[in-house]
């Protein structure tokens, strides 16, 4: 598929970490495509590999990587071919920015906000100080912060404001893609809702492409056009938000949706007994099989990725016949 609108095309991405007891398969054979201006929400429980996926895309790798393979095509260029130095100069912050987890606490407390925000612009975009200041003031308005707050120190801002300042920093160099790793989970309810408003406005007005990594399926629906569900290093389902929220296919996605309490309607809540498997020696076949009610003989074999139409894919033997098998 060569679609001009596709900003990010990830194929068979693997990221394994080396440990004493064997390789941890944190991201195992993940493939997806993301269109410009769209937001992909990556959801899953802790330890399912969603943050590792973000690290793999941004190539922010720890030292104990044992395998890092696959194809990441960004804007038509295979960026896996870049050397680390090339990647740093051409891609990171410049084209793909990120907002890491709890990043509101990563601002330097003794430097004014403005001086911190202009830094990537001076380094990556070779702007003059004056240009950088103007640009930063622009993005500050986009995220809904008063421009004079640029002269303040981080401790003079509330948590929600600091988080918005970090998002302004990520947006300043006009990246094509922004990876948000749990952007709102450290915030209070009202600041969280406020931040989602800001991100939604950025998305609608500047048409930024986002990858939103979160465990909160309710909040993800505020921003997501597409939803990817990860389980034990695998992307078990990928679908447009419209289909995912009304009719998720994978048994794990269904269970996960059933476990989300809702405020506005009464529903029968469920939970998933058991725990996710260890990623060091994951079971062969479907990794969810041990906790799945719909398990049958075939589940001991690796499930194929099935195309369910509308660009949705699911990795489950149940849909082998209903959908169109992509790669068995």
């Amino acid at each position, binding site marked *: 598929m060569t679609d001009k609108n596709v900003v990010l095309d990830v194929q068979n991405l693997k990221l394994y970490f080396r440990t004493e007891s064997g390789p941890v398969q944190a991201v195992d054979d993940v493939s997806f495509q993301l269109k410009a201006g769209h937001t992909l929400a990556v959801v899953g429980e802790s330890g399912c590999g969603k943050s590792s996926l973000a690290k793999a895309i941004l190539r922010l790798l720890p030292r104990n990587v044992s395998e890092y393979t696959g194809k990441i095509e960004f804007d038509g260029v295979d960026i896996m071919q870049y050397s680390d130095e090339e990647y740093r100069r051409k891609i990171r912050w410049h084209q793909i920015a990120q907002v890491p987890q709890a990043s509101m606490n990563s601002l330097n407390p003794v430097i004014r906000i403005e001086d911190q925000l202009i830094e990537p612009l001076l380094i990556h975009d070779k702007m003059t100080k004056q240009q950088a200041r103007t640009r930063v003031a622009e993005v500050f308005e986009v995220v809904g912060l008063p421009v004079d707050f640029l002269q303040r120190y981080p401790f003079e801002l509330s948590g929600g404001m600091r988080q918005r300042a970090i998002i302004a920093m990520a947006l300043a160099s006009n990246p094509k893609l922004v990876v948000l790793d749990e952007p709102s989970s450290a915030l209070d309810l*009202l600041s969280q809702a406020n931040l989602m408003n800001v991100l939604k*406005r950025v998305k609608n007005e500047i048409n930024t492409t986002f990858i939103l990594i979160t465990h909160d399926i309710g909040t993800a629906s505020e921003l997501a056009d597409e939803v990817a569900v990860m389980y034990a290093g695998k992307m078990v389902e990928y679908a447009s938000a419209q289909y995912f929220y009304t009719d998720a296919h994978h048994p794990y996605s269904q269970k996960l949706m059933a*476990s*989300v*309490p*809702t405020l506005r309607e009464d529903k029968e809540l469920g*939970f998933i007994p058991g725990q996710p498997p260890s990623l060091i020696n994951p079971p062969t076949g479907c990794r969810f099989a041990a906790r799945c009610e719909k398990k049958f003989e075939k589940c001991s074999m690796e499930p194929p990725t099935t195309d369910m139409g509308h660009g949705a894919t699911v990795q489950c033997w149940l849909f082998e016949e209903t959908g169109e098998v992509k790669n068995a």
Partner: protein
Amino acid sequence: MPSLAKPLSQQQEQRAVLRVEDLHTWFEVRRMGFFKAGDVRALDGVSFELYAGETISIVGESGCGKSTLAKTILGINHITKGSVHFDGEDLSSLDKEGWKRYRSNIGYIQQDPYGALPPFMSVKRILEEPMIINGIRDKDEQQRRIRQVLEEVKLAPIEDFLPKFPHMLSGGQQQRLVIARAMILEPKMLIADEPVSMLDASVRIEILQLLQALQRKHNLAIIYITHDLSTVRYFSERIFTMYGGKIIEKSSTQALLKEPLHPYTKALFEATSDPDVQNLYSYKDIPSGEPPSLMNPPKGCRFHPRCRQIIKGLCDQQMPPEFWVREDHAATCWLYKDK
């Protein structure tokens, strides 16, 4: 049993396990270690009653005083003004033995299960500790209780879990162990301070349903403290909203879900996202600003600087009293003064 937010009959009043009256907890702030600079009014006049077999959810954002309330009831914080009665006994009148007895009657479930469990103690030791402290020395009785609580929290097979250390358990299992420890002295009341906010979505419901099952079996009174409005409808009979050290809305769950009254509770409702694809197409209407400083709380209603429905000259001057709009629904807000 449908419970009402207001104590109605004598009978109900007698059955109240916990009665909190006009409770204040202020923390003194000193300047240069000597001069008094003021007080942080973390809890500023809170009153309610809790009955056996019911759950009250206390909802609010960080800094609203909900954890201070829990700790004051537990006796970790001192009481500045007001009183707490447990089973008809005033906490301020308790001696050392009385405190010990009182504390063995309340179980406390912390937010972070890993932080709450000593890493160098095995499951068995963790469960024995409260019994040793409270004078249950009989080995058979200890065994019996350990087996019973572990069965109740579904940590089975029991023999496999007894020698394990906290780090060998998953987050959900750790939290179940914390609950088991809270239950081992057979308390009458549980205080659960954000018991599931550190856990994954798929385990949260399991833990909350476990608490509910324990409540039914032992007729426990539970105070469930949370910032997550979406879980409260499933697990409580009454919901209190706190803001700036005060309870600003008291209601039965049904009444609150039908129509929240206080503008702040309305904002909390608006801010909670249900998984719904329609969310993508609308913005939320959220009040701007931050919660007030508890050292210098604003005059009048503490929410008035952020409130869109402010009545000038009233809300910014006088603290509103509790208005009972319906039999089971009260709001501390001037908007309801004629109702």
